[in-house]
Every structure is written in structure tokens, then in C-alpha cells.
């Protein structure tokens, strides 16, 4: 116990006061940059903002001015302040008993208060370094909160300030009282005072190393689900209970019109509604709709369609039939029979952070098992998709936990055989008759030409999965993707027009075609509307889902496996696979933002950059060599300078045409003559041994001493 006390006393002993103003400024800038970064993420009220923005600089100035005082009263006041801040933190926690995620904001506030109070009492270098370390924690907190690129600005200030603070702290440590101060050599290589050059070098090297580390690191998502952020800035109930609202596409949920135009919503998608008219044209724009934090990309499903009338997809189930899920967050989503065998597997956590008003659909990867949302009611449709009872607008955050076992090509191929091997009694369990009826239904006037086409394409496909692949291949070979696809004439079957005549369409047409061609073979299939994964931002690590990522694709039912999505529009694998490196993501991100110039222009730019770099490198190298040859006089030169200085002190400087030995002889100091000869041998002969060097140095030192005494 006494040892612990002694240690505490030792750790808290009064240290040498730090007098470097530059170090204080650097630490202050770093702390300010980190604190404002946290504030920027919306932590804390106006009191905290004002306290930090005004109080922090004041605190640093105050502690710099009063650094020599002992300040016991101040310390006591600060201790009280810290206790108050802590009590406030605990009371907020108790008042808002929630998930771990709920702790983050109060914790950050507590940290900011402590940082602010600590800044009033930073007399020593160690205290300043503590401040620097806590600014690191603040930056990390801001990094956890931040979902936008704005943090980059703060980092751009914080990082150089931290480097400068470290450099200045080291210099201050070395130059503290009692250090060995030497007379700088006449042609010394560097000036010791200013820290600009070491700061620049350290910044450049650590930035380069940091970039290398960043590029090499894999992209991470939340591998372990322990924080499930959810937030609703406001709770506006949907007027139609269990109904669908699509505020981004302002037709209020019922889309009509015959291929006239897309709705007036810039980013809204007409697919999120009761019906999807495939004759509609026009696509949402690139408005950022939401950011998704997930460990790997997936299709964010919104809703499905089961009924096709020749032009329009609709949902056969009335909205009033939606199942009402009631409870407190998180809401568990009950298993459905059709998904039963498929819904056990690794958990996949996705957090959706909405930037724009979206339909009141809960997006998520197949199949959603749990939803974290600060509301007590969800509506589950019979197809498993979920709707909220409140509007989802900007700032809303919900987290979805999905799970499904790994599906492989082999398991899909075996599904048919497995189903065939079942006793007829069990077949109803694996593929319920109502499901089969609902998802294989075709309208009465389904063109026979399409049935023929379906037979033709899938002929020779041994399994359902191979049939899907065959249709996808046929679509890829015989249709073209274009957003400017012609609208079908009124009264014409849209699918027939697309598959047999125009053969130009986009995801709705292509997805619809796959569903219909499979249904023609009696395979249960449906159309899904949702969002493509979006592009992963390498800095925030979030998938940025834009309006244009709205997508429609097909889902096919495999007995024993469940619903499996197929996207015939993209016959290439999805970009940004899980586990891809940050470097690849960064590169993709950069390439996307480069202007779209022809290859020749880029080649020219590359050559110019290479040439400029080469020139700069050679100039630098030459300058460096010149400087090093100037800055680093040889040993012989340095020792000769000792002798020359000796002679200069006695008023007999060395003539330019005088050899060193001759000069030593002229000076008439016996103890200089042997060293002079040795120095000449080092300079013009075959070199001397280390012992001779030492002996020469000592002899010269002795001569200087004798001279002084």
C-alpha cells in the first residue's frame, strides 16, 4: 500500500514547467481539431459547443500564462468540475437506459468536458502530452460517429498538429535544463532551432506509411454485432396503417400512368409501391439516399411483387392482412414456414442511416431476423418484407440483423433432386401448394410465344438452377441494357414487347423476363424491388446508396433452400466484395472521381507526372549530395580546422598555399606537428587507423588545453 502511495506521489510529482510556446500551440490546435470533430457529429448541446469553442483556447492560454504557479485552488475547482461532469454522465446513462450505442454520446460529452477542464492545468510537458493523447481518443470518437467525409478536414489539421507537437515535445525534452550545449561547428549541417524541417519530414513519412498501412488493411465491417444503432429524429405515423408510403416518389403510393414519365421525385423509385408498372420509364438520380454500414455488400431488399397482369406487377395480398409485430426494440421477426430451413446461419448486421426520406420499408439483406428501431410496431407482409408504422426521413437510423446459411451452386442444383426424393406427403412441406400457386401464376392472356421461348431456352437444363442460368445467359446474349428503352405501346404485353421485339430494357424488364420465363416452366419466382449495395466509401467504410442504386431483380424458390435472388441485369459479380482491401476501395473511389478523359490524355498525364517526378527527384538528389558534401566536412578537414583555429588565435592564420604540416611547423608548436602529419596522411595517403584518429584528436585537445593554461 505504501509502495502504491509512493508510486502515485512519484507519478504526480511536480515536473519541470514547459516553456515552449510552440509546443503549447501545437497541442492546442490538435485538441481543438479533435474536439470540434466530435462536436461536428452532433454530440452535445449548445452549452458544450460554446464551452469547447470558446473555453478550450482560453484554457490553453490561461494555463500557459499561469504555468509557474502552483494553482492549488484551480486544481480543486477542476476536480469539482470533473466530478460534476461525471455525475451528469451517470445520471444521463441511468435516465436513458439503452444499448451500448446509447452510451457513446454521453461518453463523448464527458470526455469533452474533462478535456476542457484539463486544459486549464497543463504546466508540464507530460500534461501536454496527456492532452495530445486524449485528443487522439477524441478523434477516434469522432471517427466512430462520423459517416461523412467532413471528418477529413479535422484530420488534416489534427494530424500535422500532432506530429508538430511530438517533434516539439522531443526537442523540448532534449533541450531541457542541464543539456549539453556545444558551440555549433563552423559549417554545421543543420540549424538546430526551427522544427519546421523535421515536422515536414515526419509528416510526409508518417503519412506515406499510414497510407501504405491503410491500403494494405482489409475493409472491415462490424464483424461482431455489439452495437446496434437506431434513431428516429421524429415519429410521424403513416396515415394508412400497415400501408406503404413513398415520399421520395410523390404519388403517394399508387402509381398510374402509361409510360408517360417517372414521378416528380428526384431520387424516389416508382418500384416502392403497391404496383410496379414496367411501362414506366425514367430513373432516380444520384442523390445519396442512405448510408449502410455492413461487413460485406448485399442487395438491400425492400418489397416483392407476386402478381403480373401483362404490364404491371402488383401485390396480391391486401395491406390490411399485414401481420402486426408489436414490442420493444429489438423486434424479433417471426420465422415463416417457407423460409424456415433457410433462416439459420451467421448473423449479418446492417445499419441503415437515412439521408433522404425513404419509403417506410425496412431494407435489409435476406433474411431479416431482428430489427433495431426505436418504435414499437412493425408490419410484416406475407412475403416476409417489413414496413414501419412511422415515416423514415433524414437522420433516421435502424439496424437489421439478417441471417442465412451459405448457399452454393451445388446446394441449389441438388434442390431438385432432393425435392424429387421426398415422399409426396413431405413435398407439401418443402414447397407449400399455396406458395407454388401464388408464385407460378401467370395471367390468362400470357402469350404462348413466351411459353415457347421459355421451353426453347430451358430445354436441356437438368435442374431448376441450370434453367435459371440458361435464361440469364440468353438474356445477357439477346437483350441490351439501356435506360432509354422504348416504352411499349398501350395494350401490348410489355414482356412480349421486350423479349421478342425491342430487346432493350433495364432492370425491371430484365428481372420481369426472368420471373415470367421461370413461371412458364412452373418454377416459383417473384420480382423484388430494393437497392443495389451501393459504392463503398473507403474513408467512412460505409456503402453509399444513391437513388440510382434502386433496383429490381428476381427471386426463385428452391425447396429446402428458400428464396434465392438472381440479378439477370448484372451477369458480372458484384463489385466491392467482402474482404477486399482498403487500397482497392480507395483506388476505385479515386478512379470514379477522375474526369472521364480518353486514354491517350491519361497516358500523357502519366508521362508528364513521371517526367516531373523524375526531374524533381534528380534535383533533390543532386542538392542533397551537394549539401551533404558541404555539410559534412571530412574528419581530416575538421581536425585541420582545429589547427587553423589554433593558429588564428595566435594571430597567424594559415595561408591558402600553405600545407598543413608546413603551417604547423610555422606555428612552432611541437605538439601540433605530429597531428598535422597524421591529418595529411588521412587526407592524401592511404588513411589512418581509428587509434591514430583518437590519438590525433586527443593531442589536439591537449594542445588547446595547454594553450589556455
Amino acid at each position, binding site marked *: 500500500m505504501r509502495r502504491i502511495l509512493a508510486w502515485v506521489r512519484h507519478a504526480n510529482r511536480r515536473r519541470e514547467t514547459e516553456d515552449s510556446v510552440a509546443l503549447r500551440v501545437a497541442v492546442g490546435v490538435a485538441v481543438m481539431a479533435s474536439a470540434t470533430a466530435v462536436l461536428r457529429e452532433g454530440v452535445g448541446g449548445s452549452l458544450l459547443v460554446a464551452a469547447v469553442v470558446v473555453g478550450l483556447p482560453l484554457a490553453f492560454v490561461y494555463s500557459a500564462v499561469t504555468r509557474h504557479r502552483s494553482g492549488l485552488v484551480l486544481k480543486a475547482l477542476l476536480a469539482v468540475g470533473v466530478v460534476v461532469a461525471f455525475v451528469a454522465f451517470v445520471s444521463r446513462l441511468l435516465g436513458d437506459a439503452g444499448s451500448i450505442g446509447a452510451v457513446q454520446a454521453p461518453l463523448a460529452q464527458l470526455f469533452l468536458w474533462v478535456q476542457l477542464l484539463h486544459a486549464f492545468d497543463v504546466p508540464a510537458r507530460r500534461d501536454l*502530452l496527456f492532452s*495530445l*493523447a486524449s485528443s*487522439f481518443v477524441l*478523434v*477516434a470518437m*469522432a*471517427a*466512430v460517429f*462520423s459517416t461523412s467525409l467532413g471528418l477529413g478536414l479535422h*484530420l488534416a489539421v489534427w*494530424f500535422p498538429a500532432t*506530429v508538430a507537437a*511530438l*517533434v516539439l*515535445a*522531443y526537442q523540448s*525534452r*532534449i*533541450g531541457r535544463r542541464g*543539456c*549539453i550545449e*556545444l*558551440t*555549433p*561547428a563552423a559549417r*554545421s*549541417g*543543420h540549424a*538546430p532551432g526551427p522544427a519546421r524541417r*523535421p*515536422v515536414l*519530414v*515526419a509528416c510526409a*513519412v*508518417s*503519412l506515406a*506509411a*499510414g*497510407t501504405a*498501412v*491503410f491500403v494494405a*488493411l482489409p*475493409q*472491415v465491417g*462490424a*464483424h461482431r454485432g*455489439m*452495437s446496434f444503432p437506431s434513431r428516429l429524429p421524429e415519429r410521424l405515423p403513416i396515415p394508412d396503417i400497415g400501408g406503404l408510403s413513398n415520399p421520395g416518389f410523390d404519388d403517394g403510393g399508387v402509381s398510374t400512368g402509361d409510360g408517360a414519365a417517372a414521378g416528380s421525385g428526384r431520387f424516389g423509385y416508382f418500384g416502392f409501391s403497391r404496383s410496379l408498372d414496367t411501362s414506366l420509364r425514367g430513373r432516380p438520380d444520384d442523390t445519396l439516399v442512405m448510408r449502410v454500414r455492413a461487413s460485406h455488400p448485399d442487395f438491400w431488399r425492400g418489397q416483392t411483387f407476386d402478381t403480373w397482369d401483362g404490364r404491371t406487377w402488383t401485390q396480391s395480398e391486401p395491406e390490411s392482412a399485414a401481420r402486426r409485430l408489436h414490442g420493444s426494440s429489438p423486434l424479433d421477426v417471426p420465422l415463416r414456414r417457407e423460409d424456415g430451413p433457410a433462416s439459420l446461419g451467421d448473423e449479418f448486421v446492417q445499419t441503415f442511416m437515412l439521408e433522404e426520406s425513404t419509403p417506410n420499408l425496412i431494407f435489409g439483406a435476406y433474411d431479416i431476423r431482428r430489427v433495431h428501431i426505436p418504435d414499437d410496431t412493425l408490419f410484416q407482409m406475407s412475403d416476409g418484407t417489413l414496413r414501419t408504422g412511422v415515416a423514415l426521413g433524414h437522420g433516421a437510423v435502424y439496424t437489421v440483423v439478417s441471417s442465412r446459411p451459405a448457399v452454393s451452386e451445388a446446394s441449389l442444383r441438388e434442390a431438385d433432386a432432393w425435392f424429387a426424393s421426398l415422399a409426396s406427403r413431405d413435398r407439401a412441406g418443402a414447397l407449400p401448394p399455396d406458395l407454388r400457386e401464388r408464385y407460378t401464376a401467370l395471367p390468362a392472356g400470357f402469350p404462348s410465344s413466351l411459353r415457347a421461348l421459355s421451353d426453347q431456352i430451358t430445354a436441356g437444363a437438368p435442374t431448376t438452377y441450370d434453367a435459371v442460368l440458361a435464361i440469364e445467359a440468353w438474356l445477357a446474349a439477346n437483350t441490351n441494357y439501356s435506360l432509354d428503352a422504348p416504352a411499349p405501346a398501350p395494350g401490348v404485353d410489355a414482356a412480349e414487347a421486350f423479349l421478342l421485339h425491342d430487346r432493350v430494357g433495364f432492370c425491371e424488364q430484365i428481372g420481369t423476363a426472368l420471373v415470367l420465363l421461370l413461371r412458364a416452366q412452373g418454377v416459383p419466382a417473384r420480382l423484388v424491388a430494393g437497392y443495389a449495395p451501393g459504392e463503398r466509401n*473507403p*474513408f467512412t*467504410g*460505409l456503402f453509399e446508396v444513391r437513388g440510382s442504386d434502386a433496383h429490381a431483380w428476381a427471386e426463385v424458390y428452391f425447396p429446402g433452400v428458400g428464396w434465392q435472388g438472381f440479378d439477370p441485369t448484372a451477369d458480372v459479380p458484384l463489385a466491392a466484395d467482402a474482404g477486399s482491401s*482498403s487500397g482497392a476501395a480507395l483506388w476505385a473511389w479515386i478512379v470514379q472521381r477522375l474526369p472521364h478523359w480518353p486514354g491517350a490524355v491519361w497516358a500523357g498525364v502519366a508521362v508528364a507526372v513521371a517526367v516531373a517526378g523524375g526531374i524533381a527527384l534528380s534535383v533533390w538528389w543532386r542538392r542533397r549530395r551537394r549539401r551533404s558534401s558541404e555539410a*559534412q566536412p571530412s574528419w581530416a578537414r575538421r581536425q585541420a580546422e582545429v589547427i587553423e583555429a589554433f593558429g588564428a588565435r595566435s594571430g597567424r592564420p594559415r595561408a591558402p598555399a600553405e600545407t598543413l604540416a608546413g603551417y604547423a611547423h610555422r606555428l612552432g608548436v611541437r605538439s601540433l606537428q605530429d597531428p598535422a602529419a597524421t591529418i595529411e596522411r588521412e587526407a592524401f595517403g592511404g588513411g589512418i587507423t581509428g*587509434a591514430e584518429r*583518437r590519438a590525433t*584528436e*586527443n593531442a589536439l585537445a591537449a594542445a588547446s*588545453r595547454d594553450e589556455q593554461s
Partner: protein
Amino acid sequence: MNATIRPGAPTGVACGFAGIGACLVLVLANTGAGWLLVVLALTAGLLVAGFTLAWRAARTIDVALRVPGDAVAGRPVVVGADVSAAAPFELSVPELGLSWTGVPAPGRGDFEVMPLRRGVVRSCTIEVRCAAPLGLWWWRRRSRLQLTAPLHVAPLPVDVRAPWPDGGGAAQATLATGARGDELVRAVRDYVPGDPPKLVHWHASARTGTLVVRELESPTTPAVCVVCDLDGPPGRVEAVASVAAGLAAAALAEGTEVVLATTEMEGPVLAPVATRIEVGRRLARAVPGPPVAPPAGMRTAHAAAFVATGLTP
């Protein structure tokens, strides 16, 4: 300075940053926050730069020392240095009592060190550590400097004011009364009342007709032998050496011839010393061992006895 560079240890700041970084890795695994990855990569870059740049800086350091021949333990002594370096660093020379001391800039000049231990320094270890510019990781270099002339670190003399053990004052008194028989006659002078009758020079008195007395002088200055018998625990050894230095210095100050009895590596040494520097050098070389017996009849001061009887201040 032909010394290999060894990785030393991280500084406290680096440990702090690395520790916070390790905690953040856990947070990152939990939240998957992409910016955290950026912050961590920057921190890693900072640590890497602190590690590599310090190595580069440590490579440029070259320290040459010029060490004088004599010093006194616990007293500062001036050492000359010739330093070339591309960055500030810290220097330590344990043998000269220089613990880690900053060297902010290269150059040439003198600085003070304080050898703490008595003894002969024939070579010293020059230790250099550098964490420039970021102060995150110490790189160390160590080289051995062979001194051209050994540095004798003498014990710090203790101010000894106690009487000689066999009574220096008493000896003087007996000399004055001529109690001993081996004195020489320096001169004769006229009798002054009070002179002891023993000193009357009868032959001369008879020749001159007046009473003359002999004036006496001892044959030589009485030498004193200071015995420095180093034995016992280290603290006592140094105390004895310090007392011996004080005794010899006091005797030399009186103008007395001093014979110093010590034991050196090669064996016991009994030899006169003429100057304080010589005393210091002899005592610097002294090692524990059986002391040589002082010459018979010579006044002897045992330094160990002074320490044992607590006669020193």
C-alpha cells in the same frame, strides 16, 4: 563511433498511442467505423515513422570525447566533446557519472561531468540514444572509448583536523626540549636565561669566555605514513579512501613528507607522494587488499582507524 545501433524501447508517448490504438482496434471490430480505420492507419504510420526516422537519425550520431587525466569523485570535471549529428539526442557516459543528458545540437565544446566513483578509468562507454524527430522510439548506440591516458578519479578528500594518532604536537614539544639524541647541532648562540643546562656547549663557552648553548635541528623532516587499508563494504572503502586523501592533503599542506601505503592491482605500494595530484592518482589506483606495513619508527596514520573511531567530521 563504430557502434551498431540497437533498438531501444518505445517512449511513454508511443506506448500511450499504441495502447489507445489497440483499444480502438476492438472498437473498430465492433462498429466497423471506416474513419476509425483511417485514424488507426495514420497512427500506425506515425509509429512507423517514429521508428524508422529515429533509426536514421541515430545513424548520423558521432560523439568523440576528450577526457582529462585527473578528476575527483563527486566534483565536476570538464570534458571536451566533438559531436556530429543530424538530430537532437541523449548522451550517457556511466563511467564519468553522466546519466542521460540531452544534446540539442551538434558542435564542439566542453561540458561538465561528475565522476561518482573513485578509480581508474581506462576506457569508457559512450551511450547514445535518439528518438528524433517524433520521440516515439529510442534507438541506442553504444561505443567504447579507449582513453589515451587513463583518467584517475581520486576520492573526495575529507577535511581532517584531528591530531596525528601518535600526537604530532607532543613530538614537536619533545623536539624542542631535545629529548631525543639524534639531533644535529645547527649553531651555537649566547645563553639566554631559561635555556636548559644540557644544551650549554662547554667547549665553545670555554673558548669564547661567554656561555653559549647549542641550537638543535632534527636530522630530517619527520615523514608521516598514511596507511590506506581499504577493506569492508563499498561505502566504508570509499570513506577510508576519502580520509586517506584528507590526511595526505593535510600533511602536505603542513609541509610534511608523506608516504602513502596502498594496495594496487599489482600488489602493495609504499611510496612517497609529493603533490595532491599524486595522492589522488595513488588513491584512485588503490584497491582493497592487505596493507603494507609502514616503515618502523615512522609516524603513521591509519585512515581506517580514523573512520572506525569516527574522528572524521
